[in-house]
Protein backbone atom coordinates (compact mmCIF):
# COMPACT_ATOMS: atom_id res chain seq x y z
CA UNK A 1 0.00 0.00 0.00
CA UNK A 2 2.94 2.27 -0.60
CA UNK A 3 2.00 2.85 -4.22
CA UNK A 4 2.06 6.47 -5.26
CA UNK A 5 -1.11 8.50 -5.60
CA UNK A 6 -0.77 8.42 -9.39
CA UNK A 7 -0.53 4.63 -9.47
CA UNK A 8 -3.55 4.23 -7.20
CA UNK A 9 -5.54 6.70 -9.29
CA UNK A 10 -4.63 4.79 -12.46
CA UNK A 11 -5.81 1.51 -10.93
CA UNK A 12 -9.08 3.12 -9.84
CA UNK A 13 -9.57 4.59 -13.33
CA UNK A 14 -9.12 1.15 -14.89
CA UNK A 15 -11.58 -0.40 -12.43
CA UNK A 16 -14.15 2.28 -13.24
CA UNK A 17 -13.62 1.73 -16.98
CA UNK A 18 -13.98 -2.03 -16.64
CA UNK A 19 -17.15 -1.58 -14.58
CA UNK A 20 -18.60 0.78 -17.16
CA UNK A 21 -17.76 -1.52 -20.09
CA UNK A 22 -19.18 -4.50 -18.27
CA UNK A 23 -22.40 -2.67 -17.42
CA UNK A 24 -22.67 -1.53 -21.02
CA UNK A 25 -22.06 -5.04 -22.30
CA UNK A 26 -24.66 -6.55 -20.00
CA UNK A 27 -27.12 -3.73 -20.66
CA UNK A 28 -27.27 -4.30 -24.40
CA UNK A 29 -27.65 -8.11 -24.27
CA UNK A 30 -31.38 -7.89 -24.87
CA UNK A 31 -33.94 -9.86 -22.94
CA UNK A 32 -37.14 -9.55 -24.89
CA UNK A 33 -38.56 -12.90 -26.01
CA UNK A 34 -38.55 -13.43 -29.69
CA UNK A 35 -41.99 -12.75 -31.09
CA UNK A 36 -43.56 -15.16 -33.44
CA UNK A 37 -44.37 -13.30 -36.62
CA UNK A 38 -44.87 -13.60 -40.26
CA UNK A 39 -41.44 -14.11 -41.97
CA UNK A 40 -42.19 -11.28 -44.44
CA UNK A 41 -42.93 -8.90 -41.59
CA UNK A 42 -39.94 -10.14 -39.58
CA UNK A 43 -37.63 -9.14 -42.41
CA UNK A 44 -38.95 -5.58 -42.22
CA UNK A 45 -38.56 -5.44 -38.45
CA UNK A 46 -34.84 -6.29 -38.31
CA UNK A 47 -32.88 -8.27 -35.77
CA UNK A 48 -34.07 -6.26 -32.77
CA UNK A 49 -37.54 -7.66 -33.08
CA UNK A 50 -36.80 -11.03 -34.56
CA UNK A 51 -33.87 -12.20 -32.44
CA UNK A 52 -34.47 -10.16 -29.27
CA UNK A 53 -31.14 -8.38 -29.69
CA UNK A 54 -30.81 -4.81 -28.44
CA UNK A 55 -30.55 -2.13 -31.13
CA UNK A 56 -27.87 -0.42 -29.04
CA UNK A 57 -24.40 -1.69 -29.99
CA UNK A 58 -22.24 -3.13 -27.25
CA UNK A 59 -18.65 -2.24 -26.38
CA UNK A 60 -17.27 -5.06 -28.46
CA UNK A 61 -18.99 -3.86 -31.61
CA UNK A 62 -17.96 -0.26 -30.97
CA UNK A 63 -14.40 -1.39 -30.25
CA UNK A 64 -14.29 -3.32 -33.51
CA UNK A 65 -15.66 -0.30 -35.35
CA UNK A 66 -13.06 2.03 -33.76
CA UNK A 67 -10.35 -0.42 -34.71
CA UNK A 68 -11.70 -0.46 -38.26
CA UNK A 69 -11.56 3.33 -38.45
CA UNK A 70 -8.12 3.46 -36.89
CA UNK A 71 -6.65 0.98 -39.34
CA UNK A 72 -8.17 2.75 -42.35
CA UNK A 73 -8.80 6.35 -41.44
CA UNK A 74 -8.32 8.04 -44.81
CA UNK A 75 -10.44 6.13 -47.34
CA UNK A 76 -12.70 8.13 -49.60
CA UNK A 77 -15.62 6.38 -51.25
CA UNK A 78 -17.62 9.41 -52.32
CA UNK A 79 -19.29 12.27 -50.45
CA UNK A 80 -21.22 10.11 -47.97
CA UNK A 81 -18.52 7.60 -47.10
CA UNK A 82 -15.20 9.06 -46.07
CA UNK A 83 -12.75 7.82 -43.46
CA UNK A 84 -12.94 9.22 -39.94
CA UNK A 85 -9.45 10.68 -40.37
CA UNK A 86 -10.59 12.75 -43.34
CA UNK A 87 -13.65 14.00 -41.48
CA UNK A 88 -11.54 14.90 -38.44
CA UNK A 89 -9.03 16.71 -40.64
CA UNK A 90 -11.81 18.83 -42.16
CA UNK A 91 -13.13 19.77 -38.70
CA UNK A 92 -9.69 20.43 -37.33
CA UNK A 93 -8.81 22.57 -40.35
CA UNK A 94 -11.92 24.71 -39.88
CA UNK A 95 -11.36 25.04 -36.15
CA UNK A 96 -7.71 26.01 -36.50
CA UNK A 97 -8.37 28.48 -39.31
CA UNK A 98 -11.23 30.22 -37.48
CA UNK A 99 -9.26 30.08 -34.25
CA UNK A 100 -6.11 31.66 -35.68
CA UNK A 101 -8.12 34.39 -37.35
CA UNK A 102 -9.63 35.03 -33.91
CA UNK A 103 -6.12 35.16 -32.38
CA UNK A 104 -5.07 37.72 -35.01
CA UNK A 105 -8.00 39.94 -34.04
CA UNK A 106 -8.30 39.28 -30.31
CA UNK A 107 -4.67 39.82 -29.28
CA UNK A 108 -4.13 43.29 -30.83
CA UNK A 109 -7.62 44.51 -29.89
CA UNK A 110 -7.20 43.04 -26.40
CA UNK A 111 -3.88 44.91 -26.06
CA UNK A 112 -5.58 48.11 -27.17
CA UNK A 113 -8.42 47.69 -24.68
CA UNK A 114 -6.03 46.70 -21.91
CA UNK A 115 -3.75 49.68 -22.44
CA UNK A 116 -6.37 52.35 -23.08
CA UNK A 117 -9.07 52.99 -20.49
CA UNK A 118 -10.88 55.06 -23.13
CA UNK A 119 -11.07 52.17 -25.61
CA UNK A 120 -11.93 49.82 -22.80
CA UNK A 121 -15.01 51.82 -21.86
CA UNK A 122 -15.97 52.60 -25.45
CA UNK A 123 -15.88 48.96 -26.59
CA UNK A 124 -17.31 47.44 -23.42
CA UNK A 125 -21.03 47.69 -24.39
CA UNK A 126 -20.36 46.01 -27.73
CA UNK A 127 -18.44 43.16 -26.15
CA UNK A 128 -21.06 42.70 -23.45
CA UNK A 129 -23.81 42.35 -26.07
CA UNK A 130 -21.87 40.24 -28.55
CA UNK A 131 -20.37 37.81 -26.05
CA UNK A 132 -23.55 36.01 -24.92
CA UNK A 133 -24.83 35.41 -28.48
CA UNK A 134 -24.79 31.73 -29.29
CA UNK A 135 -22.34 31.34 -32.16
CA UNK A 136 -24.87 29.28 -34.12
CA UNK A 137 -27.24 32.24 -34.12
CA UNK A 138 -24.81 33.89 -36.53
CA UNK A 139 -25.10 30.99 -38.94
CA UNK A 140 -28.05 32.23 -41.08
CA UNK A 141 -26.52 35.67 -41.33
CA UNK A 142 -23.17 34.16 -42.27
CA UNK A 143 -24.72 31.87 -44.90
CA UNK A 144 -26.68 34.80 -46.33
CA UNK A 145 -23.72 37.18 -46.57
CA UNK A 146 -20.84 34.78 -47.27
CA UNK A 147 -22.86 32.37 -49.44
CA UNK A 148 -20.44 29.53 -48.71
CA UNK A 149 -21.25 26.94 -46.09
CA UNK A 150 -17.64 26.01 -45.33
CA UNK A 151 -16.50 29.60 -44.83
CA UNK A 152 -19.62 30.24 -42.76
CA UNK A 153 -18.56 27.45 -40.41
CA UNK A 154 -15.12 29.04 -40.12
CA UNK A 155 -16.75 32.38 -39.38
CA UNK A 156 -18.83 30.80 -36.62
CA UNK A 157 -15.66 29.34 -35.10
CA UNK A 158 -14.01 32.74 -35.34
CA UNK A 159 -16.87 34.54 -33.62
CA UNK A 160 -17.14 32.03 -30.78
CA UNK A 161 -13.41 31.89 -30.02
CA UNK A 162 -12.73 35.60 -30.21
CA UNK A 163 -14.45 36.67 -26.97
CA UNK A 164 -12.63 34.68 -24.27
CA UNK A 165 -9.28 35.58 -25.86
CA UNK A 166 -10.21 39.23 -26.21
CA UNK A 167 -11.44 39.57 -22.65
CA UNK A 168 -8.52 37.69 -21.13
CA UNK A 169 -5.95 39.60 -23.16
CA UNK A 170 -7.48 42.92 -22.14
CA UNK A 171 -7.58 41.84 -18.51
CA UNK A 172 -4.04 40.46 -18.51
CA UNK A 173 -2.63 43.56 -20.16
CA UNK A 174 -4.50 45.92 -17.83
CA UNK A 175 -3.32 43.91 -14.82
CA UNK A 176 0.40 44.24 -15.66
CA UNK A 177 2.07 45.22 -12.40
CA UNK A 178 2.73 48.94 -12.16
CA UNK A 179 6.21 48.33 -10.79
CA UNK A 180 7.22 46.45 -13.95
CA UNK A 181 5.90 49.29 -16.06
CA UNK A 182 7.84 51.71 -13.87
CA UNK A 183 10.99 49.68 -14.49
CA UNK A 184 10.39 50.10 -18.21
CA UNK A 185 9.75 53.81 -17.76
CA UNK A 186 12.92 54.46 -15.77
CA UNK A 187 14.89 52.53 -18.41
CA UNK A 188 13.35 54.68 -21.17
CA UNK A 189 12.12 51.61 -23.01
CA UNK A 190 10.24 52.40 -26.23
CA UNK A 191 6.49 51.63 -26.28
CA UNK A 192 6.89 48.81 -28.78
CA UNK A 193 9.72 47.18 -26.84
CA UNK A 194 7.73 47.63 -23.64
CA UNK A 195 4.74 45.87 -25.21
CA UNK A 196 6.83 42.88 -26.25
CA UNK A 197 9.29 42.62 -23.36
CA UNK A 198 7.17 43.64 -20.36
CA UNK A 199 3.45 43.54 -21.06
CA UNK A 200 3.34 40.46 -23.28
CA UNK A 201 5.29 38.17 -20.94
CA UNK A 202 3.46 39.58 -17.93
CA UNK A 203 0.05 38.96 -19.51
CA UNK A 204 0.97 35.71 -21.28
CA UNK A 205 -0.44 33.31 -18.65
CA UNK A 206 -3.79 35.14 -18.64
CA UNK A 207 -3.84 35.33 -22.44
CA UNK A 208 -3.13 31.60 -22.71
CA UNK A 209 -5.96 30.85 -20.28
CA UNK A 210 -8.29 32.73 -22.62
CA UNK A 211 -6.90 30.86 -25.63
CA UNK A 212 -7.46 27.55 -23.87
CA UNK A 213 -11.09 28.42 -23.11
CA UNK A 214 -11.51 29.50 -26.73
CA UNK A 215 -10.18 26.30 -28.29
CA UNK A 216 -12.53 24.32 -26.05
CA UNK A 217 -15.53 26.36 -27.15
CA UNK A 218 -14.45 26.20 -30.81
CA UNK A 219 -14.30 22.41 -30.67
CA UNK A 220 -17.75 22.28 -29.04
CA UNK A 221 -19.23 24.55 -31.67
CA UNK A 222 -17.70 22.92 -34.76
CA UNK A 223 -19.73 19.73 -34.25
CA UNK A 224 -23.01 21.64 -34.14
CA UNK A 225 -21.98 23.93 -37.00
CA UNK A 226 -21.08 21.00 -39.25
CA UNK A 227 -24.39 19.30 -38.48
CA UNK A 228 -26.00 22.44 -39.91
CA UNK A 229 -23.78 23.11 -42.91
CA UNK A 230 -23.19 19.47 -43.84
CA UNK A 231 -20.84 18.10 -46.47
CA UNK A 232 -17.75 17.19 -44.50
CA UNK A 233 -16.41 17.14 -40.97
CA UNK A 234 -16.90 15.14 -37.83
CA UNK A 235 -20.19 16.91 -36.99
CA UNK A 236 -21.57 16.03 -40.41
CA UNK A 237 -20.33 12.47 -39.90
CA UNK A 238 -22.31 12.13 -36.67
CA UNK A 239 -25.48 13.41 -38.31
CA UNK A 240 -24.98 11.31 -41.44
CA UNK A 241 -24.50 8.14 -39.40
CA UNK A 242 -27.61 9.00 -37.38
CA UNK A 243 -29.50 9.17 -40.66
CA UNK A 244 -27.96 5.79 -41.55
CA UNK A 245 -29.06 4.54 -38.11
CA UNK A 246 -25.49 3.40 -37.51
CA UNK A 247 -25.38 3.92 -33.76
CA UNK A 248 -22.00 2.17 -33.65
CA UNK A 249 -20.50 4.90 -35.81
CA UNK A 250 -22.25 7.63 -33.79
CA UNK A 251 -20.71 6.30 -30.58
CA UNK A 252 -17.33 5.97 -32.29
CA UNK A 253 -17.55 9.60 -33.43
CA UNK A 254 -18.53 10.77 -29.93
CA UNK A 255 -15.46 9.02 -28.55
CA UNK A 256 -13.18 10.50 -31.22
CA UNK A 257 -14.57 14.01 -30.63
CA UNK A 258 -13.78 13.67 -26.95
CA UNK A 259 -10.21 12.48 -27.53
CA UNK A 260 -9.52 15.23 -30.08
CA UNK A 261 -10.91 17.89 -27.73
CA UNK A 262 -8.67 16.59 -24.97
CA UNK A 263 -5.60 16.76 -27.24
CA UNK A 264 -6.39 20.37 -28.19
CA UNK A 265 -6.94 21.35 -24.55
CA UNK A 266 -3.77 19.66 -23.32
CA UNK A 267 -1.72 21.28 -26.08
CA UNK A 268 -2.86 24.73 -25.00
CA UNK A 269 -2.31 23.77 -21.35
CA UNK A 270 1.29 22.79 -22.15
CA UNK A 271 1.91 26.11 -23.92
CA UNK A 272 0.33 27.94 -20.97
CA UNK A 273 2.68 26.14 -18.57
CA UNK A 274 5.70 27.16 -20.62
CA UNK A 275 4.86 30.89 -20.33
CA UNK A 276 3.79 30.82 -16.69
CA UNK A 277 6.31 32.39 -14.34
CA UNK A 278 6.51 31.71 -10.61
CA UNK A 279 6.58 34.80 -8.43
Amino acid at each position, binding site marked *: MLASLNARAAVLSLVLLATFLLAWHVGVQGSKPVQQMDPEYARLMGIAATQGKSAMPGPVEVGAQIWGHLTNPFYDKGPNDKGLGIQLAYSLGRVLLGYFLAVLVALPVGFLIGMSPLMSRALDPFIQVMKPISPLAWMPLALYTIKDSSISAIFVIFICSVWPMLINTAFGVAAT*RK*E*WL*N*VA*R*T*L*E*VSPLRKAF*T*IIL*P*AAAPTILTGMRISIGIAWLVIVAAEMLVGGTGIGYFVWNEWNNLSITNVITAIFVIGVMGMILDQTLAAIARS*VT*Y*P*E
Partner: protein
Amino acid sequence: MKPVSTSSKFISIEGIARRYPKAGGGKTTIFEDLWFSMNKGEFSCIIGHSGCGKTTVLNILAGLELPEDGVAVVDGRAIEGPSLDRAVIFQSHALLPWRSVLGNVAYAVSSKWRDWSRDQVNAHAMKFIEKVGLKGSELKKPAELSGGMKQRVGIARALSIEPKILLMDEPFSALDALTRGSLQEEVRRICLETGQTAFMITHDVDEAIYLADRIVLMTNGPEAMIAEIVENPLPRDRRRIDVHKSADYYPLRNHLMDFLVSRSKTFKDEIPAGYDKKHPPVVRPCAEPPHVPGETRKVA
Protein backbone atom coordinates in the same frame (compact mmCIF):
# COMPACT_ATOMS: atom_id res chain seq x y z
CA MET B 1 10.11 75.47 -21.25
CA LYS B 2 10.75 74.77 -17.63
CA PRO B 3 12.64 77.45 -15.77
CA VAL B 4 16.37 76.94 -15.81
CA SER B 5 17.98 76.52 -12.47
CA THR B 6 20.31 79.08 -11.09
CA SER B 7 21.64 76.68 -8.51
CA SER B 8 25.14 75.36 -8.87
CA LYS B 9 24.19 72.18 -7.04
CA PHE B 10 24.14 68.80 -8.78
CA ILE B 11 20.57 68.10 -7.77
CA SER B 12 18.27 70.91 -6.88
CA ILE B 13 14.62 70.68 -5.90
CA GLU B 14 13.07 74.10 -6.27
CA GLY B 15 9.68 74.89 -4.81
CA ILE B 16 7.96 71.65 -5.80
CA ALA B 17 4.37 70.93 -4.78
CA ARG B 18 2.08 67.95 -4.95
CA ARG B 19 -1.64 67.95 -4.27
CA TYR B 20 -4.16 65.15 -4.44
CA PRO B 21 -7.89 65.53 -5.08
CA LYS B 22 -9.87 65.27 -1.87
CA ALA B 23 -13.04 63.21 -1.62
CA GLY B 24 -15.89 65.66 -2.02
CA GLY B 25 -13.97 68.29 -3.95
CA GLY B 26 -10.98 70.43 -3.20
CA LYS B 27 -7.42 69.24 -2.91
CA THR B 28 -5.18 67.97 -0.16
CA THR B 29 -1.73 69.48 -0.28
CA ILE B 30 0.83 66.80 0.46
CA PHE B 31 3.60 69.36 0.36
CA GLU B 32 4.28 72.63 -1.37
CA ASP B 33 7.18 75.01 -1.85
CA LEU B 34 9.73 72.33 -1.00
CA TRP B 35 13.38 73.22 -1.54
CA PHE B 36 16.55 71.28 -1.11
CA SER B 37 19.70 70.40 -2.99
CA MET B 38 22.44 67.81 -3.12
CA ASN B 39 26.08 67.83 -4.15
CA LYS B 40 27.65 65.34 -6.49
CA GLY B 41 28.81 62.20 -4.71
CA GLU B 42 26.65 62.87 -1.70
CA PHE B 43 24.47 60.30 0.02
CA SER B 44 21.21 61.77 1.33
CA CYS B 45 18.53 60.05 3.29
CA ILE B 46 15.04 61.40 3.79
CA ILE B 47 13.22 60.52 6.99
CA GLY B 48 9.63 61.16 7.91
CA HIS B 49 6.40 59.44 8.81
CA SER B 50 4.15 57.73 6.28
CA GLY B 51 2.06 60.18 4.32
CA CYS B 52 4.58 63.02 4.35
CA GLY B 53 5.26 62.61 0.66
CA LYS B 54 8.74 61.08 0.76
CA THR B 55 7.91 58.61 -1.98
CA THR B 56 6.40 61.42 -4.04
CA VAL B 57 9.66 63.38 -3.76
CA LEU B 58 11.57 60.31 -4.91
CA ASN B 59 9.14 59.69 -7.76
CA ILE B 60 9.55 63.30 -8.86
CA LEU B 61 13.31 62.85 -8.86
CA ALA B 62 12.86 59.63 -10.82
CA GLY B 63 10.57 61.41 -13.27
CA LEU B 64 7.75 58.95 -12.61
CA GLU B 65 5.61 61.81 -11.28
CA LEU B 66 5.76 65.46 -12.16
CA PRO B 67 5.45 68.23 -9.56
CA GLU B 68 2.45 70.54 -9.86
CA ASP B 69 4.53 73.60 -9.12
CA GLY B 70 8.26 74.10 -9.08
CA VAL B 71 10.97 72.13 -10.74
CA ALA B 72 13.52 69.46 -9.96
CA VAL B 73 16.86 69.95 -11.66
CA VAL B 74 19.60 67.38 -12.14
CA ASP B 75 22.96 68.39 -13.55
CA GLY B 76 21.55 71.64 -14.89
CA ARG B 77 18.52 70.12 -16.63
CA ALA B 78 14.92 70.10 -15.44
CA ILE B 79 13.41 66.66 -14.98
CA GLU B 80 10.63 66.13 -17.50
CA GLY B 81 10.28 62.38 -17.31
CA PRO B 82 12.11 59.18 -16.38
CA SER B 83 15.68 58.93 -17.54
CA LEU B 84 18.47 56.40 -17.70
CA ASP B 85 20.54 58.96 -15.79
CA ARG B 86 18.50 58.22 -12.70
CA ALA B 87 18.18 54.62 -11.55
CA VAL B 88 15.56 53.49 -9.08
CA ILE B 89 15.84 50.64 -6.61
CA PHE B 90 12.26 49.75 -5.79
CA GLN B 91 11.07 48.69 -2.36
CA SER B 92 9.44 45.59 -3.85
CA HIS B 93 12.60 44.90 -5.95
CA ALA B 94 10.36 44.87 -9.09
CA LEU B 95 12.32 42.16 -10.87
CA LEU B 96 10.82 40.66 -14.00
CA PRO B 97 9.95 37.12 -12.81
CA TRP B 98 10.17 35.55 -16.26
CA ARG B 99 13.80 36.63 -16.69
CA SER B 100 16.85 35.21 -14.98
CA VAL B 101 19.14 37.29 -12.77
CA LEU B 102 21.37 37.91 -15.77
CA GLY B 103 18.33 38.59 -17.94
CA ASN B 104 17.04 41.22 -15.53
CA VAL B 105 20.34 43.08 -15.37
CA ALA B 106 20.97 42.65 -19.11
CA TYR B 107 17.56 44.14 -19.83
CA ALA B 108 18.64 47.36 -18.16
CA VAL B 109 22.08 47.30 -19.81
CA SER B 110 20.63 46.80 -23.29
CA SER B 111 18.15 49.60 -22.64
CA LYS B 112 20.99 51.99 -21.96
CA TRP B 113 23.43 50.86 -24.68
CA ARG B 114 21.09 49.84 -27.47
CA ASP B 115 23.73 49.11 -30.08
CA TRP B 116 25.75 46.74 -27.92
CA SER B 117 26.08 43.12 -28.92
CA ARG B 118 24.62 40.44 -26.71
CA ASP B 119 28.09 39.45 -25.51
CA GLN B 120 28.95 43.02 -24.57
CA VAL B 121 25.65 43.38 -22.71
CA ASN B 122 26.10 40.13 -20.82
CA ALA B 123 29.72 40.87 -19.92
CA HIS B 124 28.76 44.28 -18.57
CA ALA B 125 25.80 42.81 -16.66
CA MET B 126 28.00 40.08 -15.17
CA LYS B 127 30.41 42.70 -13.85
CA PHE B 128 27.66 44.17 -11.70
CA ILE B 129 26.22 40.79 -10.72
CA GLU B 130 29.70 39.97 -9.37
CA LYS B 131 29.86 43.33 -7.62
CA VAL B 132 26.77 42.49 -5.54
CA GLY B 133 28.07 38.99 -4.85
CA LEU B 134 25.65 36.97 -6.97
CA LYS B 135 28.16 35.28 -9.26
CA GLY B 136 27.04 31.69 -9.74
CA SER B 137 23.37 32.54 -9.38
CA GLU B 138 23.08 34.49 -12.62
CA LEU B 139 20.93 31.88 -14.36
CA LYS B 140 18.42 31.56 -11.52
CA LYS B 141 14.95 33.01 -11.77
CA PRO B 142 13.92 35.59 -9.13
CA ALA B 143 11.49 33.09 -7.59
CA GLU B 144 14.47 30.90 -6.67
CA LEU B 145 16.18 33.69 -4.74
CA SER B 146 15.79 34.87 -1.17
CA GLY B 147 14.51 38.36 -0.45
CA GLY B 148 18.01 39.70 0.11
CA MET B 149 19.33 38.18 -3.10
CA LYS B 150 16.40 39.64 -5.05
CA GLN B 151 17.24 43.07 -3.72
CA ARG B 152 20.89 42.53 -4.68
CA VAL B 153 19.72 41.93 -8.23
CA GLY B 154 17.72 45.16 -7.98
CA ILE B 155 20.88 46.96 -6.87
CA ALA B 156 22.96 45.38 -9.66
CA ARG B 157 20.32 46.38 -12.20
CA ALA B 158 20.25 49.96 -10.96
CA LEU B 159 24.05 50.28 -10.85
CA SER B 160 24.60 48.58 -14.21
CA ILE B 161 23.28 51.55 -16.16
CA GLU B 162 25.88 53.73 -14.41
CA PRO B 163 23.38 56.38 -13.37
CA LYS B 164 24.12 59.90 -12.22
CA ILE B 165 21.92 59.31 -9.18
CA LEU B 166 20.75 56.23 -7.42
CA LEU B 167 17.22 56.60 -6.02
CA MET B 168 16.18 54.12 -3.35
CA ASP B 169 12.69 53.78 -1.92
CA GLU B 170 13.07 51.92 1.38
CA PRO B 171 15.04 49.22 -0.41
CA PHE B 172 15.79 47.14 2.67
CA SER B 173 12.60 47.51 4.67
CA ALA B 174 11.28 44.09 3.69
CA LEU B 175 14.48 42.27 4.69
CA ASP B 176 15.53 40.69 7.95
CA ALA B 177 18.01 42.58 10.11
CA LEU B 178 21.10 40.54 9.21
CA THR B 179 20.53 40.71 5.47
CA ARG B 180 19.69 44.38 5.78
CA GLY B 181 22.98 45.04 7.55
CA SER B 182 25.13 43.32 4.96
CA LEU B 183 23.33 45.02 2.09
CA GLN B 184 23.78 48.41 3.76
CA GLU B 185 27.49 47.74 3.97
CA GLU B 186 27.64 46.82 0.31
CA VAL B 187 25.65 49.80 -0.85
CA ARG B 188 27.91 52.11 1.17
CA ARG B 189 31.06 50.45 -0.17
CA ILE B 190 29.90 50.66 -3.79
CA CYS B 191 28.74 54.26 -3.45
CA LEU B 192 32.02 55.32 -1.87
CA GLU B 193 34.12 53.45 -4.45
CA THR B 194 32.33 54.96 -7.42
CA GLY B 195 31.46 58.35 -5.96
CA GLN B 196 27.82 57.56 -6.60
CA THR B 197 25.28 60.24 -5.76
CA ALA B 198 22.43 58.59 -3.89
CA PHE B 199 19.07 59.53 -2.45
CA MET B 200 17.27 57.13 -0.15
CA ILE B 201 13.99 56.99 1.69
CA THR B 202 14.14 55.15 4.97
CA HIS B 203 12.23 54.63 8.18
CA ASP B 204 15.25 53.23 9.92
CA VAL B 205 17.21 55.81 11.91
CA ASP B 206 20.30 53.60 12.19
CA GLU B 207 20.30 52.98 8.46
CA ALA B 208 20.29 56.72 7.88
CA ILE B 209 23.09 57.27 10.40
CA TYR B 210 25.28 54.62 8.81
CA LEU B 211 24.66 55.49 5.16
CA ALA B 212 23.85 59.16 4.86
CA ASP B 213 26.09 62.20 4.64
CA ARG B 214 23.02 64.34 5.14
CA ILE B 215 19.62 63.47 6.51
CA VAL B 216 16.55 65.41 5.41
CA LEU B 217 13.84 65.56 8.09
CA MET B 218 10.29 65.88 6.82
CA THR B 219 7.38 66.84 9.05
CA ASN B 220 4.09 64.96 8.99
CA GLY B 221 1.75 65.42 6.05
CA PRO B 222 -0.44 66.83 4.76
CA GLU B 223 1.34 70.09 4.11
CA ALA B 224 4.62 68.49 5.02
CA MET B 225 7.78 70.54 4.99
CA ILE B 226 11.49 70.05 5.39
CA ALA B 227 12.11 70.86 9.04
CA GLU B 228 15.86 70.74 8.84
CA ILE B 229 18.79 69.08 7.22
CA VAL B 230 21.04 67.12 9.55
CA GLU B 231 24.70 66.76 8.68
CA ASN B 232 26.19 63.48 9.74
CA PRO B 233 29.08 64.18 12.15
CA LEU B 234 30.38 60.61 12.09
CA PRO B 235 33.71 59.89 10.37
CA ARG B 236 33.51 59.04 6.69
CA ASP B 237 35.32 55.74 7.17
CA ARG B 238 32.76 54.54 9.73
CA ARG B 239 31.98 50.85 9.96
CA ARG B 240 28.50 49.57 10.61
CA ILE B 241 29.54 47.35 13.49
CA ASP B 242 31.08 50.15 15.55
CA VAL B 243 29.08 53.18 14.45
CA HIS B 244 27.41 53.22 17.87
CA LYS B 245 30.79 53.54 19.58
CA SER B 246 31.37 56.96 18.08
CA ALA B 247 30.96 59.83 20.55
CA ASP B 248 28.66 61.59 18.11
CA TYR B 249 26.40 58.59 17.60
CA TYR B 250 24.00 59.12 20.47
CA PRO B 251 23.63 62.87 20.08
CA LEU B 252 22.78 62.29 16.41
CA ARG B 253 20.49 59.36 17.07
CA ASN B 254 18.68 61.15 19.88
CA HIS B 255 18.20 64.17 17.68
CA LEU B 256 16.66 62.07 14.92
CA MET B 257 14.48 60.04 17.30
CA ASP B 258 13.33 63.18 19.02
CA PHE B 259 12.29 64.57 15.67
CA LEU B 260 10.40 61.43 14.63
CA VAL B 261 8.66 61.02 17.97
CA SER B 262 7.56 64.57 18.68
CA ARG B 263 8.92 67.38 16.55
CA SER B 264 7.63 65.94 13.27
CA LYS B 265 4.12 66.60 14.63
CA THR B 266 4.66 69.88 16.42
CA PHE B 267 7.11 71.60 14.07
CA LYS B 268 4.31 73.12 11.99
CA ASP B 269 2.80 74.89 14.99
CA GLU B 270 6.05 76.27 16.37
CA ILE B 271 8.06 77.20 13.33
CA PRO B 272 11.34 78.66 14.57
CA ALA B 273 12.06 82.31 13.96
CA GLY B 274 13.98 82.90 10.77
CA TYR B 275 12.85 79.64 9.19
CA ASP B 276 13.23 79.91 5.44
CA LYS B 277 11.65 77.27 3.23
CA LYS B 278 14.28 77.85 0.58
CA HIS B 279 17.10 77.29 3.03
CA PRO B 280 15.98 74.88 5.74
CA PRO B 281 18.30 75.07 8.77
CA VAL B 282 21.33 72.79 8.65
CA VAL B 283 22.24 71.20 11.96
CA ARG B 284 25.11 68.99 13.03
CA PRO B 285 24.41 67.21 16.30
CA CYS B 286 27.73 66.33 17.98
CA ALA B 287 29.06 65.48 21.38
CA GLU B 288 31.40 68.49 21.45
CA PRO B 289 30.10 71.60 19.77
CA PRO B 290 32.70 72.40 17.13
CA HIS B 291 32.63 75.91 15.83
CA VAL B 292 31.80 75.92 12.14
CA PRO B 293 31.01 79.36 10.84
CA GLY B 294 27.73 79.81 9.03
CA GLU B 295 26.03 76.83 10.62
CA THR B 296 23.41 76.64 13.25
CA ARG B 297 24.80 74.73 16.15
CA LYS B 298 22.88 72.11 17.92
CA VAL B 299 24.19 70.79 21.16
CA ALA B 300 22.67 67.63 22.39
